[in-house]
């Protein structure tokens, strides 16, 4: 059986979902028999190739996030929003009710210690979006894995269901938003 090609990325997330993925512990040996990693923070490959499965942690807070997400959607047959931030914006989205300009002014012009009287404007920096968005507001998402982070068991259940050709399902013991 050909191994599934899997790519993963963190956008506006904290890497907690990736840490949770690694918390599948020794089950990872079983997993690598069935999957092969493409772009992922785990191997530091930077460009995503044609993949069967894309796992995305974090929502969209800047233009680069949107670019990476669109690239993943183009290259991945199945695209999955992993964790609270990918699903509803999560903690970063708690800035959404406040206008972006007010936040930038407060941090870079007002806050003691960080304020140098200028808002960073280097062309290398991706532009922040006015609001943080969950993934499904920008591209089609095939599956959602809730949790902050989703537990290793949720991730494992999803992957094993998928590998076995079953429709992934989470019973009440696995479905959590926190």
């Amino acid at each position, binding site marked *: 059986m050909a191994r599934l090609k899997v790519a993963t990325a963190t956008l506006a997330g904290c890497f907690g979902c990736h840490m949770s993925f690694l918390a599948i512990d020794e089950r990872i040996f079983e997993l690598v028999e069935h999957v092969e990693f493409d772009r992922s923070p785990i191997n530091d490959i930077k460009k995503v190739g044609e993949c069967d499965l894309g796992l995305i942690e974090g929502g969209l807070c800047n233009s680069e996030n949107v670019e990476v997400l669109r690239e993943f959607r183009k290259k991945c047959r199945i695209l999955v929003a992993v964790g609270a931030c990918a*699903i*509803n914006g999560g903690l970063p989205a708690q800035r959404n009710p406040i206008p972006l300009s007010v936040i930038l002014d407060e941090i870079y012009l007002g806050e003691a210690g960080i304020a140098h009287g200028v808002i960073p404007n280097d062309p290398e920096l991706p532009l922040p979006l006015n609001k943080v968005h*969950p993934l499904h507001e920008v591209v089609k998402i095939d599956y959602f894995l809730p949790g902050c982070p989703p537990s290793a068991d949720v991730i494992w259940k999803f992957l094993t269901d998928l590998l076995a050709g079953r429709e992934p399902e989470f019973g009440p013991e696995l*479905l*959590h*938003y926190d």
Partner: protein
Amino acid sequence: MKSFLLDGERISFEEGETILQAAIRAGKYIPHLCFHPEFRPHGSCKLCTVKIAGRQSASCTRLAAEGLEVESETAELNAERLLLTQMLFVEGNHFCPSCEKSGDCQLQATAYHLGMTSAHFDHFYPNRPVDASHPEYLLDFNRCILCSLCVRASRDVDNKNVFALAGRGIATHLVVNARSGKLGDTDFAATDKAASVCPVGVILKKGKGFSVPIGSRTFDKKEIGEWVDTRLKERT
């Protein structure tokens, strides 16, 4: 005793009982959010919608009647309940991981029950500042689902009228009955029924957040369908 059929199962009722009241007494779960066994029904959330003779009806306001054939656990009704729940999530700001009510919240537990993995729609991200003016309680309006239970509790049990729903349609919102609009300027007290009735994380006691560890909270231990009639047992 008179009875009706709920998903083919015989449920007996007393004169004047609604379908939902009789179902809960029989230990049968019909999803609901704005209904509470101690209060008169409000009929606003529509989660409790059932089908009787091909027509939809809110089971919390529909009186039980002899021989009715009521459908509740159908794929069609649960799909509509899921949509209603998803709309409640996007209308407010529900960030469960940072909510004190997480694990004890009926909206969250209902969403689990219905298998919700995402809110599906675009989020509104409304701007609803928190009211922390009261020394013992805070109000986080971001999570209000407009069930009116606090309104009913304050008016009908506490005889105070601290809360009201203002506006219409999508502009409906919870207001506090003080000239300043602040809870600290009302006669709201920790002993009020209204202090403990909110099914979600709006009316919160200060200084006790996250006191119960994950794993021991209400809905960590019981699915909402099994929890729902515990409210009746607590009373008797």
